[in-house]
């Protein structure tokens, strides 16, 4: 069997795996896609102008923006790129370069594409149904080109990060990094080629119109906009690289500090168990069986949170999430947004933050979560309901607080008063909190069910659907209140934009309703 045969086998196998994973992940994908589409339709369309083409293009713009930030965020870079990973491929007679190429192709086929394909398919099919095939084609080409390019960038950046971490030699990293460079170089040609090809189609003019609408500008301006987005994305990539380097240095120090703190707590617990409250001696080490902890009592929540942090702090990803998101949002607002047009400054930042929130809901559902998981807690004499609180304190508070701080600062720059900012923060805390509780309760419910019977599978499905609906309803509820998105940013900024947005929202809805008739 030749190399092409092996490639086919690998792609086929990857697709089988993808298909098998889909049922588990489907509801989360759906949540993501639905949230994104509702967000696009309700929030972006009014901002960029309610007309048919931009209304159809809005979800795509949303996706492209999300995609860019998502891909350049280490949530993806540090996640396994392919379903069939290197350690499996490594055992077979495959050349290094060939294996690399296969991994790249498999990465293009990874499950993450589902995030983007569902709404894109909806948009494209809507356009076809409306008798606008050229625009539909244009969207497919644009999305395909960007997907390819961004995947290339991702694939190239990954070894560079690894090289920084000292896992690859600089030479190997550079060799692999050449792949995205090729894609970046090819991108203008790819776009040009698709442009020329479509121009041969009788409805070429519509295509150009479609692209213009998609880019919310004239064609040249649109390309410049895309180029700016790329520059911004690359800048973020550079920041991430620098941050990863710094974090790698900071990490051991933090570890030592946390370990020392944990030991101090444990010593204190051993020394004075009674003074530490009802549940706080459960994790203490006892040399005497007679004085073994009473498993009926609650476990020290503070200590579990600390333990959770100790585990999580080994996960670079977690630290990126906690530390880098607010930093990126801040830099984006400070450096990029003011120099850009209204669309970027008013849409990208909220989109960025809201996708983080959505992303965390997905993480919450257990696809990439680390740290003190329920199954670990369940082996300890611990009340499992504490799990929700552990997650809340150790994961959600830093994330929400970080985003809120950034939002508050941006809000102040936008001219709102401290009083309005604080009011906004209090308001915006409500929604993530409810979301978190709803979601974690569902996670607990899922975990307590066996997945092996038809009844339990059905129950899980129902719970997932209910969870999704609750989530979407909460988003809609938030929009209905006039916020641009779920995140803290909108909660702060809507005080300034609310009147104008209200008008646009109503006219956007009106237009959508009229068009749907």
């Amino acid at each position, binding site marked *: *069997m030749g190399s092409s*045969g*092996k490639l086919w*086998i690998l792609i086929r*196998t990857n697709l*089988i*795996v993808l298909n*098998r*994973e889909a049922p588990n992940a489907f509801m989360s994908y759906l949540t993501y896609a639905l949230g994104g589409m509702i967000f696009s339709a309700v929030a972006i369309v009014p901002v960029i102008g309610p007309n048919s083409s931009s209304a159809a293009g809005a979800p795509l713009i949303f996706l492209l923006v999300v995609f860019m930030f998502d891909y350049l965020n280490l949530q993806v870079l540090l996640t396994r790129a392919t*379903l*069939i*990973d290197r*350690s*499996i491929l*490594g*055992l*077979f*007679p*495959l*050349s*290094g370069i060939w*294996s690399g190429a296969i991994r790249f192709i498999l990465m293009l086929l990874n499950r993450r594409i589902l995030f983007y394909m569902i709404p894109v398919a909806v948009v494209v099919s809507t356009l076809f149904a409306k008798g606008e095939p050229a625009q539909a084609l244009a969207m497919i080409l644009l999305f395909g080109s960007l997907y390819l390019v961004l995947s290339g960038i991702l694939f190239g950046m990954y070894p560079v990060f690894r090289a920084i971490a*000292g896992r690859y030699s600089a030479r190997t990293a550079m060799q692999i990094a050449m792949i995205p460079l090729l894609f970046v170089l090819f991108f203008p040609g790819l776009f040009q080629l698709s442009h020329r090809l479509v121009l041969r189609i009788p409805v070429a003019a519509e295509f150009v119109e479609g692209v213009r609408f998609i880019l919310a500008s004239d064609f040249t301006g649109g390309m410049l906009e895309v180029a700016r987005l790329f520059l911004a994305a690359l800048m973020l990539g550079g920041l991430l690289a620098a941050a990863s380097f710094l974090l790698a240095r900071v990490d051991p120090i933090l570890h030592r500090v946390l370990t020392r703190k944990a030991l101090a707590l444990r010593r204190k617990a051993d020394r004075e168990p009674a003074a530490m409250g009802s549940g706080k001696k459960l994790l203490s080490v006892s*040399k005497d069986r007679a004085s073994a902890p009473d498993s009926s009592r609650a476990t020290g929540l503070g200590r579990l949170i600390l333990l959770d942090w100790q585990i999580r702090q080994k996960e670079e990803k977690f630290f990126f999430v906690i530390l880098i998101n607010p930093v990126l949002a801040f830099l984006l607002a400070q450096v990029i947004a003011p120099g850009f047009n209204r669309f970027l400054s008013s849409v990208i930042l909220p989109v960025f933050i809201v996708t983080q929130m959505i992303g965390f809901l997905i993480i919450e559902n257990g696809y990439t979560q680390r740290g003190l998981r329920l199954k670990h807690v369940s082996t300890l004499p611990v009340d499992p309901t504490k799990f929700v609180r552990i997650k809340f304190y150790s994961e959600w508070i830093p994330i929400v607080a970080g985003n809120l701080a950034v939002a508050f600062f941006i809000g102040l720059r936008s001219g709102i008063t401290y009083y309005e900012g604080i009011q906004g923060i209090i308001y915006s805390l409500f929604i993530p909190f409810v979301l978190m509780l709803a979601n974690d309760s569902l996670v607990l419910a899922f975990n307590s069910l066996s997945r092996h019977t038809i009844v339990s599978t059905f129950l899980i499905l129902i719970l997932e659907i209910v969870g999704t609906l609750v989530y979407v309803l909460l988003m809609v509820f938030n929009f209905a209140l006039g916020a641009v998105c779920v995140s803290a940013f909108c909660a702060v900024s809507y005080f300034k934009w609310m009147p104008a947005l209200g008008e646009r929202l109503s006219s956007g809805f009106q237009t959508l309703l009229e068009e749907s008739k």
Partner: protein
Amino acid sequence: MRTIELTGLIKTYSGGVKALDGLDLSVEEGTLLGFVGPNGAGKSTTINIVAGLIGKDSGEVRLLGEEIRPTDYEYKRNVGFVLDSPRYIDKLTAREYLRFVAAMYGLEVGAAAARIDELLEFFDLEKKRKARIDSYSAGMKKKIALAAAIIHRPRILILDEPLEAIDPVSAKAIKDNLKLMVQQGTTVLLSSHVLDTVEKLCDEIAIINKGRIVFRSRMGEIRQRLKSELGKDTYTSLEEIFIDVVGENRERDGVKKLSWL
């Protein structure tokens, strides 16, 4: 002919941990070599280097007479691996996974199908042939790894704890077949902590400690080697030699006890 020849292998992990310190090891064709050592001695590192999964700092790896460089991969057509933590595509069924493995080794479809049937029956996996690997027990997963390692009838088998978690009946059948393969010329490097199995199954033994081979002997010559090298007249079990060679400090300190027991 020496089918496996490792010379002066050195590997230091980041953080300065020296896993291999000039390891020399050669195995003749048609030999079943027991490769034993305490935890952290360098067994898995050696196997991973031979499998091409990690790089070496220096030294030479020769398989079937040819030097293996980091970029080489064709040699894997002649080698089967069971690693200490085998990886599977666990969303596939056993049959699908074996079909995938057979294709990657370039087996013709018809021959692969026949071998897969036979392997599934041999490893007693027929009953769960429609179940995904992620629902398998640890022992069943190990069987899948073994089946994948031998499906292409390799000339060299590198096995890291291949019988771990496998039931005694299946283990006996596997051991019998390993012997048969060795009789037919396959070279097997078997790493295990179960010294009883190594003693009964292997033709030769090599004990690794701190990244170097510290004892090497054919099974039939152990008594003689013990007398000449360690000055011991008595020999009861491989375990005794193992403790003599790698556990001298523990022996000197007496039996270790937990303070609260």
